[in-house]
């Protein structure tokens, strides 16, 4: 099982911990794309952490659209801990999407867009 090496994984105890400001900070820091990987809906150990994350991701996508970054650079996926294969698939899927979109306008503006990278919160 392999997934693209340009992804940096940031571990959180639950996607419910991922706040709006964390996602925006990733883009400010130059991430070309971010995907949040939470547990399956209905299977959250903390009952609804992944549902909170879903709402926050939706909100940040709207913000990214308004500030010219593009909400399609952010996505949320729901996988179980046993779905390693699916994780590799979504990582590939997201990487392809971001590569198609090209470097983030933030990195282009800062002149640091030599090599596209992705970020993932899991």
């Amino acid at each position, binding site marked *: 099982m392999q997934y693209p090496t340009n992804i940096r994984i940031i571990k959180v105890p639950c996607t419910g911990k991922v706040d709006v*400001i964390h996602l925006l900070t990733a883009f400010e820091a130059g991430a070309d794309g971010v995907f949040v990987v939470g547990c399956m809906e209905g299977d959250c150990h903390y009952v609804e952490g992944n549902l909170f994350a879903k709402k926050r991701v939706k909100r940040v996508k709207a913000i*990214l659209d*308004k500030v*010219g970054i593009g909400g399609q650079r952010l996505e949320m996926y729901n996988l179980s801990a046993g779905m390693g294969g699916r994780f590799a698939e979504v990582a590939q899927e997201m990487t392809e999407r971001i590569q198609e979109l090209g470097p983030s306008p*933030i990195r282009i503006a800062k002149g640091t867009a030599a090599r596209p990278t992705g970020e993932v919160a899991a």
Partner: protein
Amino acid sequence: MIKAKEKPLNEVIDMVKDLKKVLIAGCDGCVTVCEAGGAKEAKVLAAALRLFFTQEGKKAEVDETSLTRQCNKDYLQELQDRIDNYDAVVSIACGCGVQFLAEMYPTKIVYPGVDTCFMGVTDERGVYSERCQACGRCILAETGGICPIARCSKRMLNGPCGGSERGKCEINPDVPCGWELIYERLKTLGQLDRFENPVAPKDWLTSRDGGPRKIVREEIQI
């Protein structure tokens, strides 16, 4: 408490798009409770504006802070040493905070970052509803603790009107009829006899009809 909601981001962007240094000023009071204008929201708005400026290729600095209360000069004073570093301040306090900040720093441009909506309660997280219109002379003792000024769409003192149907107001089937609520509550309290004596016309001079209002309490003045 005062309830507000964030202004649409594009409106804020329009206000600040040509500036070079912007301060987002949150307020730790009411607007923090309704999650519209506190320290957290200041951080999010500042980050969003920085992303906007950067992708536009504009060199602009956006900082954020949050004051204990913007409706108090002692706290607004905390900005004294740094406010001149900025072209403008986007205050995400309620309208009182925005105005007091502008009053305190007369040469500074101050923009509102939230829409101040009403005085209300938190029904549940993210859901707020109006309870008081600050009419200046409280009649809750006569109406079973439910305010006809705030809860009746017509602000009627003797209701309900003909637009009340199955406990709902004619303006919207989701809005409870204020007077139905009052009736039910007075019934529970065994005070339905209150309906036998109409409420006298109200003196609206204590409301907005008397112009901008002021309270002076000499006994606590320093």
